[in-house]
């Protein structure tokens, strides 16, 4: 028997595809300022990190989304990408914009997820969706990298496999962080984010 693929969705085209609606923030745009509280009650402000000259990674998060489980539970993409960059002073903040009553919302649910997924960075709660909408965040996970000068360095997906099961061969965020570290140009500063839609307030 020969196995023949009927690929509905050609993975080879991933590099070329774009999001359907609106790209939102473009590389070079100013990153909207925010202050949010994490699952432990601590306050986090983007500006504080920028003032310290840090690069900040934002990850839109929803503990019950299959694509988040892919990268936090079945694979450890986010933890590993963070681990490779944190010694360079890179800050990683997860943000949950699920509205009250919607999937992935709730302090207890997110506290449990931090433990279960062994998340080594803060999960900030944005239940009004104000920060998510300001960034034009659409999916979980939707990734942003912010330069120390407060501009957007990267907007898009974590990697190049849009399925809920497999991890991509190219980790765009790791590649962008490496380029920033080496003072090089980011080859792919904008990619189509993928995942579950963010469960914003209606």
């Amino acid at each position, binding site marked *: 028997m020969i196995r023949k693929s009927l690929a509905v969705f*050609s993975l080879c085209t991933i590099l070329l595809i774009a999001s359907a609606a609106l790209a939102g923030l473009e590389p070079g745009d100013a990153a909207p300022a925010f202050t949010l509280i994490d699952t432990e009650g601590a306050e986090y402000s983007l500006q504080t990190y920028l003032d310290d000259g840090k690069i900040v990674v934002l990850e839109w998060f929803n503990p019950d989304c299959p694509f988040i489980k892919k990268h936090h539970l079945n694979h450890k993409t986010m933890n590993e990408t963070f681990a490779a960059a944190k010694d360079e002073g890179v800050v990683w903040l997860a943000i949950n914009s699920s509205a009250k009553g919607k999937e992935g919302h709730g302090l207890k649910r997110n506290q449990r997820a931090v433990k279960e997924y062994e998340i080594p960075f803060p999960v900030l709660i944005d239940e009004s969706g104000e920060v998510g909408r300001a960034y034009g965040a659409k999916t979980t996970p939707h990734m942003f990298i912010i330069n120390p000068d407060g501009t957007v360095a990267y907007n898009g997906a974590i990697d190049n496999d849009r399925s809920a099961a497999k991890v991509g061969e190219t980790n765009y965020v790791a590649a962008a962080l490496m380029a920033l570290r080496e003072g090089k140009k980011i080859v792919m500063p904008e990619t189509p984010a993928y995942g579950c839609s963010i469960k914003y307030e209606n």
Partner: protein
Amino acid sequence: MKNTINKSLGNPSEWRSRPPKPILTAMSDIHPKSLLAMTALLIGTAILCAGCSAQKKPQQPTDSNPVVVTVEAVPDAVAPGESVTLVYRFVLAADWHLYWAGRNDSGFPPLIDLELPDGWLAGGLQWPAPERHVSPGDILDHVYFGELVLIQKIGAPKDAQAGRKVAIKADVQWLACKDMCVPGRTGLSVEIPVKTQVVATEPNPASKAAARLPGPLPDRTLETEWEGATFHIHDPRARRLIFMPTEDCGQLVDLLNDGQGDRLALRFKPRGGTVGPVRGLLTIENEGGDSFTYTIQFPATVFPDAPSGG
């Protein structure tokens, strides 16, 4: 009607084939709730059907198992060198949706991997027109509610032996969403007898599905024009126009705010000195309220890149 494989399946060089793939982490792909529900359903069916007739009752989708998939071959037999159509039917529980294989902000379209005997060939999946679905946060997707029927041509080799039965296996994966998203996966199989003569009756599930596929725009007054990086579409007889880009369309700026009434102004992002091409589906809602969806294709045009730096 006699079809050769080449005619019915297109250029063989366009067919896709891949070497065997390792089995994916099947269990982890199935939502625990779905697994539980599937087990419960299986046990339930076993109890209900103990001693009952061989008649199969189709499963009904529920919130805990929102997608039920079946496959059938049409016609139910094939002659050597001829083709059959596989008809995949996804039945969805109320309010759940599946994703189109074109451009979406979120989700993932159904994925089907076929296992075919040597010498048999498969064409691409054919997708009906989806509907536009906008979620809070301007999240734009193209989806199917209720039912999704995909069709796919399978070509038998000329030396297929009449009198034998051939088994085709399909590994089907999908992501279904409502106010939450649940991935699913199932293995389907269909047996196709090879006969020297096969008579197809019309209409059948395959011809009905084929009739619903979006086709090229018929002759009608669609006015189109590039103006800088914007592609204008105007249909004076339309009440509403909706454009749904396929993966090979140029990158758009803001599809949600690109049209009103009988006009669309699709704003593209220049890339490498060009904008476009315009590729996708165009839904035209007529004054009477009925709507039709067509495939449209317009080539890219020259557009100088914005000066960088500055």
